[in-house]
Each structure stands twice: as structure tokens, then as C-alpha cells.
């Protein structure tokens, strides 16, 4: 999705403003919001990629004007409604008014240590890797209207396979409920000038983590 979340290379956002002695959360609701989102993810209500797509589905003006955890809260409201887990009138009332939907599992206190470790997204390979380390590749010029992890700034550009990271769940597929469709994952390295033109910093190199479906061989 060519949304405003895909920010690499955009102009006009100004300086980075680090905060001295920044707290983990700036208000209690931020921690609750993070935990609520993670708890609903942990019980299998949606995958991490469906969750990211839920953030990207916020309107651009909303995305840019809401704080980080503000976006998480809006995403959670939308997703529990979309999946029939709660209804709009319940969120407005602040209480359950309708029967609950059965869920496979619920997150208990004993499960918390597990949620502090990221899940594994590696999967057994169904075919050998299509590219080798050192091979020149070009990213495809694709613009899917749904979730993708190929950023706009890195589309249609030539780079080099620097590393093969194994076979991983393909976010473009899981985000639309089409299954894990595991793909080989590569670190692809670009020269700054390939991405940003002749005016780019000559000392700059940028890499992305690219799924095989994003790549095509470069003709020699």
C-alpha cells in the first residue's frame, strides 16, 4: 500500500528531536494500549502483519496527527469491530452489551514471559534460494494496494544480495489472510546514488530486507 506510513526519503518532517531521559511510557494509557494490543495479538485474533496493515489502513491525516500509541488504540478499535469481537455501541458505552465470540485461547499471567520474546518467522524452505550472495538483483516496481514490506524508495533499483537470511513468513500474504507463503529473505544492499541520484552522499549505502518475490535478476 502506497501510504503515508512508507516514509523513507520524504521531505518536510523537520529535525529529529531526541528527548532527554525519556520514560518508557509518557502516560499510563500508553502502557495499557500496548498491552491490550499485544494481548489480542497473542491470543491469535490477528497476525503481526494484519496488525501492521491495520495501522496503515488509518487515513493519512489520522496517521500523521495521532501519536504512536494513539494509532495503536484506533487500530485496535477497528480490528475488534472488523472481526466481530466487539461492536461500536459497546466501545461507545464502555461496557460489553453483546455475547462474546469464542476464542481459542486467552493470555494469562503465566504466558507473559513468552510474550517478551519475539516469535519466530523462519519456516522450512520449500525450494532452494533463487539468488546467491554477491548476485546483482533489481527490486520490482510493484504497487500493491495491500500491505507490502518493499518500501517505495527501494522499488525498481539495482542492488547486491549481501546475505541470505533464511526462509520467512511472507507479510504480503499473511496480511490479506492468504496464508504464510514462506519466501526466501535477503539483505539487499544499494549504493546511495542508486536510490537518491547523483546528489546523494557518496559514502552512503542502504540495505533493505527483501523477500524473494520482490526481486528479479539483473540482465548482464
Amino acid at each position, binding site marked *: 500500500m502506497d501510504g503515508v506510513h512508507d516514509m523513507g526519503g520524504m521531505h518536510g518532517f523537520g529535525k529529529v*528531536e531526541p*528527548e532527554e531521559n525519556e520514560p518508557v511510557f509518557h502516560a499510563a494509557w500508553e502502557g495499557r494500549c500496548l*498491552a491490550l494490543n499485544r494481548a489480542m495479538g497473542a491470543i491469535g485474533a490477528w497476525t503481526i502483519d494484519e496488525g501492521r496493515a491495520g495501522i496503515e489502513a488509518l487515513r493519512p491525516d489520522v496517521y500523521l496527527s495521532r501519536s504512536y500509541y494513539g494509532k495503536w488504540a484506533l487500530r485496535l478499535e477497528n480490528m475488534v469491530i472488523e472481526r466481530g469481537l466487539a461492536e461500536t455501541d459497546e466501545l461507545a458505552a464502555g461496557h460489553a452489551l453483546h455475547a462474546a465470540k469464542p476464542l481459542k485461547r486467552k493470555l494469562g499471567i503465566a504466558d507473559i*514471559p513468552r510474550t517478551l520474546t519475539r516469535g519466530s518467522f523462519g519456516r522450512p524452505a520449500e525450494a532452494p534460494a533463487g539468488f546467491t550472495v554477491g548476485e546483482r538483483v533489481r527490486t520490482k516496481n510493484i504497487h500493491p494496494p495491500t500491505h507490502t514490506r518493499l518500501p517505495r524508495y527501494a522499488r525498481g533499483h539495482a542492488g547486491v544480495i549481501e546475505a541470505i537470511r533464511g526462509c520467512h513468513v511472507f507479510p504480503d500474504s499473511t496480511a490479506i489472510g492468504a496464508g504464510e507463503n514462506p519466501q526466501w529473505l535477503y539483505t539487499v544492499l544499494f549504493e546511495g546514488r542508486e536510490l537518491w541520484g547523483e546528489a546523494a552522499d557518496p559514502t*552512503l549505502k542502504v540495505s533493505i530486507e527483501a523477500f524473494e518475490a520482490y526481486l528479479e535478476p539483473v540482465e548482464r
Partner: protein
Amino acid sequence: MAHDHDEDHHEHRSELSEMQLRVRALETVLAEKGYLDPAALDVMIEAFETKIGPHNGAGVVAKAWADPEFKRALVEDATKAVRSLGLINRVGDHLIAVENTPGLHNTIVCTLCSCYPWEVLGLPPVWYKSAPYRSRAVSDPRGVLADFGLSLPADTQIRVWDSTAETRFIVVPMRPAGTEGWSEEKLAALVTRDCMIGTGLPKNAADVA
């Protein structure tokens, strides 16, 4: 936990009260429906505030500085090497350690969202998730470093790692001069969060001596 400086800004204050109410409504509805246990949320929040944080990453970097064999293992397979340390929280798969050298400076970003090696660095700071950082880190990294007060030699190669998949990166900065013979614990005090993201350098030996 609300902080006074936020209260100074009207739009922050209005989002604060609106969001307090909306998040409370979400939690109440989801808990009443039996989807959640609020006590489990309390435990999770406490863990995010106390158990995970940059102290974990600092210990990893300090050990890499003190133990060349560990550094080799870390750069080869950071997930495996970090697990061997037995941190409180077990690190997940696909952690990658990238090493700075005299001619190469690494930085990490997630231009698409907020991917961050939180098992070793904790939750990301607001600036890491902000539009200014995400937009410029890949096109103008020296300008971004200048926002942090950091200026690198003109011939230093800058390498930006955009975290576009489930791989996560941690920068292993160069060990500061004048720290020969230091214990891992003392070395860890030099390792800032930002130097493991690549937007800073470790503290100088004189800062903690």
C-alpha cells in the same frame, strides 16, 4: 506517569484525556467479554518497564568488547550468542549484530513502522518512531546524526539498515580508547542506547572513570 511537559500542550492534553477514555473503554469491553485478563496486562506492562531495556544490549556490547571470541560469535549469529548469556528474557530469532569499524558506521531504522530490537534495547524511543527519523535516516543519515550532535569524518562509510522484515539489528560500536583492562560491568556503563542504534557513540572513558 503523566508528565508535566505534555500537559503544557493543549493538543497533547486533549489527546491524553480522549485516549485515556477510549483505551479504558477498550479494556473494559474486551475484559468483560472474557478476551483478556487485566492482571496479565499489569504484569506485561511492568515487564516492559523494568525487565527489557537497553541495559540488556549494553551487557551484550560490553561482553563483545571484552571477549573477542564472543564478538566473533555475536557477529556470526547474534540470536545464538545472546541466548548463551542467559538474559532474563530470551531473545527471539533473527537478531543481527553489525559492527562499526574505523571506516564504517552503521545505523538502524524502520522506515515503514517501528521495528526495533526491543528484546535487547527495550521499547523504542519516540524519535525512532517519528516521521523525521524514518523519512531522513535512509536519504540523509549525516543530517540525522547532526540532529543528535554527532559528526563523523567525511570519508567514513555510512551504512543504513532498514528493518523491513522480521530481522532485527543491533549496532556494536567501537570500544572507546583508554578502557584497557576494564571489567564488563564498567564497560557496560559506556554503552548508550543510541550508540546501539547508530545515532550516537559510546561515552568516553573519562565520563565514567
